[in-house]
């Protein structure tokens, strides 16, 4: 966001040329009248001429990328050094993600689950960011980040169990599908009201910062629509003023349900807000897995070593409908969708890259697709057969310590069931 006229962007030496982060610490080259004001609220040069600044005063924030549409590395110095196993793991997880989306979406249509949201178009953001994080990092997600969870180790079984709300769901069947939770994989429970995860992520990062020898960062995913909520501004401002180790990663997929981003905000997207609030900021091509990887890897390094937040705006396109309750053809054209499924398909680009490196071919793809599909189908069949949570779950977890009144009800229910168990479908529920 360098001022077109004079200011220049300070390059952080920890960062490589192309992946430079934007910083607000611009140094005016010429100080008019040789005088710089020293107000508590602003240290800036004086000028003698009125000039309003607007979005056209700045160049658009550039979009960092590594791969072209054919999966070829554009500048070899930017190719990340990721080992072969990891690259293949990233791709396999993309395949798995696509198959889960396809089958779980269908299963909602068949009435087997009540709700679902797909991730098409954002696979690159998921795998690129997840691979650059450490397992101990804490993830705050919005809802459209299933790939991140898969990469971190949640199994197809964990995910399907959540969607079916059976007794093996970590959330005990208490939330709608896609509201995952995983303590072991450091995923904070997904919450429906938008953007609430953002200041909470900053709060968690603040807690980490206070831990001696902290080796954890927080990553917070959010949509460009959610970024309109007041919580988003609060999160940016606190992340900066509290100097927190947090990566705020915006998935700008162009839509919030039916609202296109051009109606969601004016100005240069979400990234433009970062430097304004004193946050190191980078905009990246979210359909380019390697670019996202580089961005998040460097952001992680920076935020961990310097306790400075980083804002990343990953540009992409929401290829699928918003959710199973939406039909997006009502507000966008099929041609528009096609453009993003064909030319800018993140999975395709990454696959071409792997093929060029000799790590992948059509045969392995075919068998991987089949394997990924089969495991989802099989897991779903199993999930449907699994029991529902124990009846006791109905009375648990409203408070950490069960109030006496509820304890009494629990006992009554226990006694009642001893006498009348044949009237209840207890065999459908998990038992002691």
């Amino acid at each position, binding site marked *: 966001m360098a001022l077109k006229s004079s200011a220049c962007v300070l390059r952080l030496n920890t960062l490589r040329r192309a992946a430079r982060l934007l910083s607000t610490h611009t140094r005016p080259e010429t100080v008019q009248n040789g005088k710089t004001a020293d107000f508590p609220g602003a240290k800036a040069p004086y000028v003698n001429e009125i000039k309003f600044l607007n979005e056209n005063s700045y160049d658009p924030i550039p979009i960092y990328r590594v791969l072209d549409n054919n999966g070829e590395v554009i500048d070899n110095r930017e190719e990340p050094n990721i080992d072969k196993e990891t690259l293949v793991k990233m791709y396999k997880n993309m395949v798995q993600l696509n198959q889960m989306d396809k089958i779980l979406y269908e299963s909602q249509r068949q009435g087997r689950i*009540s709700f679902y949201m797909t991730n098409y178009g954002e696979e690159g953001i998921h795998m690129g960011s997840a691979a650059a994080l450490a397992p101990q990092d804490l993830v705050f997600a919005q809802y459209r980040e299933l790939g991140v969870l898969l990469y971190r180790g949640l199994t197809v079984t964990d995910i399907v169990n959540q969607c079916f709300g059976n007794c093996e769901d970590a959330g005990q*069947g208490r*939330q709608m599908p896609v509201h995952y939770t995983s303590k072991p994989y450091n995923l904070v429970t997904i919450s*429906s009201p938008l953007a609430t995860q953002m200041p909470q992520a900053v709060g968690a990062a603040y807690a980490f910062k206070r831990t001696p020898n902290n080796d954890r960062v927080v990553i917070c995913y959010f949509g460009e629509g959610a970024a*309109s*909520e*007041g919580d988003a501004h609060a999160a940016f401002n606190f992340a900066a003023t509290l100097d927190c180790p947090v990566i705020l990663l915006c998935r700008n997929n162009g839509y919030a*349900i039916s*609202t296109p981003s051009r109606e969601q905000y004016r100005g240069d997207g979400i990234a433009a807000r970062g430097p304004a609030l004193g946050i190191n900021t980078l905009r990246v091509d979210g359909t380019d897995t390697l670019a996202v990887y580089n961005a998040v890897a460097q952001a992680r390094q920076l935020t961990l070593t310097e306790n400075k937040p980083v804002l990343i705006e990953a540009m992409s396109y929401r290829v699928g409908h918003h959710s199973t309750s939406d039909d997006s053809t009502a507000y966008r054209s099929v041609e528009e969708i096609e453009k993003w499924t064909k030319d800018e398909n993140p999975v395709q680009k990454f696959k071409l890259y792997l093929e060029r490196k000799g790590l992948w071919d059509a045969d392995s793809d075919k068998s991987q697709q089949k394997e990924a599909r089969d495991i989802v189908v099989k897991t779903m069949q199993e999930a449907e057969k699994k029991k529902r949570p124990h009846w006791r779950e109905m009375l648990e977890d409203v408070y950490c310590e069960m109030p006496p009144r509820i304890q009494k009800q629990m006992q009554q*229910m226990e006694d009642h069931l001893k006498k009348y168990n044949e009237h209840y479908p207890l065999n459908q529920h998990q038992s002691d």
Partner: protein
Amino acid sequence: MALKSSPVVFGLLARLSRRSFSTSKALASKPVTVRDALNQAIDEEMEKDERVFVMGEEVAQYDGAYKVTRGLWKKYGDKRVIDTPITEIGFAGIAVGAAFGGLRPICEFMTFNFSMQAIDHIINSAAKTYYMSGGQIPVPIVFRGPNGAASGVGAQHSQCFGAWYSHCPGLKVVMPFSSEDHKGLMKASIRVNDPVVFLEDEILYGIPFPMSDEALSPDFVLPIGKAKVEREGKHITVVCAGRATDTALQAANELAGNGIECEVINLRSLRPLDFDAIARSVAKTHHLVTVEQGWPQSGIGAEICARVMESSTFFELDAPAWRVTGADVPMPYASSLEVLALPRPKDVTAAVAAVLGNKISEAASQ
């Protein structure tokens, strides 16, 4: 389910079926869904008054998340049907400011659950500015949207805000039941100079209710603060509002088969609360049960019981009053539990039986 006499039961109960909705015996000229009745009301008022406009998430081209504003954007355009960025606190504030500036906004929350993000504007600004400005600045806004539990949307999307908002002086709080209620009260809410919280129900949107010719006319307005006796009866008064009215009417139907005549009072508005209507009815029936979907503590039923205690109506009671409410838990996602966490007709019939049999203490001790 404050009624502890009906132990929490597992087992799938038939889902709220559309056909099971009891409709009033109004001169059935034409069945109109609640959604269409709301749409009609808003359309008519927009036509009548240039200052009225609608704003909210997805209300324009998309016709609203629940299609209540269908066709209005086509008819009135961007100037009067405004899609907002996703910020409830933002557009609630914009609505308040627009009202300060002389317009009459209708502010749609995709669901009232999201109004919590905006609650400061509603309570601290909309409800209090007329007072704080020494009566100079009225704030004519309708905050509307679906309230309470829908079906299968879990703890964060299934709460009733009736008691929350009706707690606050400066607000009017409306909770309609039938299509007629929705139409007449929406029009009144748009016309009134105070801020109104208009609590709809997603399940009711698709329900057709017969509407009289009078109700279909553009002049039809209902007074805010007047309850409606949905069914007359002499044995017990059942007070309810919104979708709980359906639960009460179903129970009343069933009880009538056993010779028990319930007087079902549809409050229509929670603030002002038509206590006179309740008092009149209790003076006749001497028994009282309240039905609501919200949680029991500090709820609507609690308010009604307190007003009974504080008035001579207390002496009319032959037995303690009883509340039937939503269960005192975050809403379970599991459909089998969800139906049990909301008042069912059978909870109402059990409550009525307990009150009429003066068996409250017995029921409560269980």
